[in-house]
């Protein structure tokens, strides 16, 4: 196993642990955040705030390097224009997220944890992504 694969597995492990520790795998907690006019649960704001605080500070240092530590090159999105496809995609994602409270990461952890809702959600998510790929999205 290459060092790159080990690094990716370690990153994924930290990511999954973070989702579980912060209850983001519980869609009722996520829906509690999205339901701003009900019994609002601000947990997700703390999770996103904590995560972005880390990336906003440390990405700067990482990107000062000429190349990633294990070789290859930085693969960052190059575009900086806000186009219709981005906004329509984000809107469609938001509607789905607001319906069930699952986004991709938590639904995958839910599948591994034996959460029935996630087992129903995931195949539909894969199908939606596949069809979007067929109609022109990358």
């Amino acid at each position, binding site marked *: 196993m290459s060092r*790159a694969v080990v*690094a*990716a*597995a370690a*990153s994924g*492990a*930290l*990511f*999954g*642990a*973070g989702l579980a*520790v*912060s*209850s983001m*795998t*519980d869609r009722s907690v996520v829906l509690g955040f999205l*339901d701003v006019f009900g*019994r*609002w649960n601000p947990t997700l704001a703390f999770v*996103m705030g*904590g995560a*972005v*605080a*880390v990336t*906003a500070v440390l*990405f700067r240092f*990482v990107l000062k390097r000429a190349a*990633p530590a294990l070789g290859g090159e930085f*693969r*960052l999105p190059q575009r*900086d224009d806000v186009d219709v*496809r981005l*906004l329509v*995609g*984000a*809107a*469609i*994602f*938001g*509607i*789905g997220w*607001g319906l*069930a409270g*699952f986004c991709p*990461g938590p639904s995958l*952890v839910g599948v591994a944890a*034996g*959460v*029935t809702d996630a087992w*129903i*959600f*995931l195949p539909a*998510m*894969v*199908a*939606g*992504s596949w069809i*979007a*790929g067929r109609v022109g*999205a990358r």
Partner: protein
Amino acid sequence: MKYGDITATLQASNPDQVPVSLSNLTTNDWIAGLAGGALIGVAAVLLLWSIGRIAGISGIASGALEGARGDRAWRIAFLAGMMLTGALVLQFMPAPPRAQTGTTPLLLAAGFLVGFGTRLGNGCTSGHGVCGLGRLSVRSLAAVAVFMACAMATTFVARHVIGAAP
């Protein structure tokens, strides 16, 4: 009737109308939220530092299924690490219920929209949220604003207008 009694009565008779407040959150909740968020941030930094990739789950997953063959191993390793460790940590946490809580049509529709939308918009809560905002990307900021607003509007309609969703 004292003020406290009145608010208690209001809350009991109409739990949806509790004012927006941080008091719904225990100290443990927000500390766990910040700590979990920091772990997610460190995971994204590790991935970028080590192999130069953005930790966006929707992109990693679609690439693992449909991407170039030589570019799949790290994606599968990331997803396996995330799923196994997440499920393991949930053994020691208040975990979400295993039994079905949402209706099947709602979960299927939501899954389809999330898969379609994240592919079309090139990212989800992690790629645009955690990583894109960290990079100060204008595209990601726009995407996050739109998906947050649409998600909140959808939850509002589902819970308070239709009154159907969980």
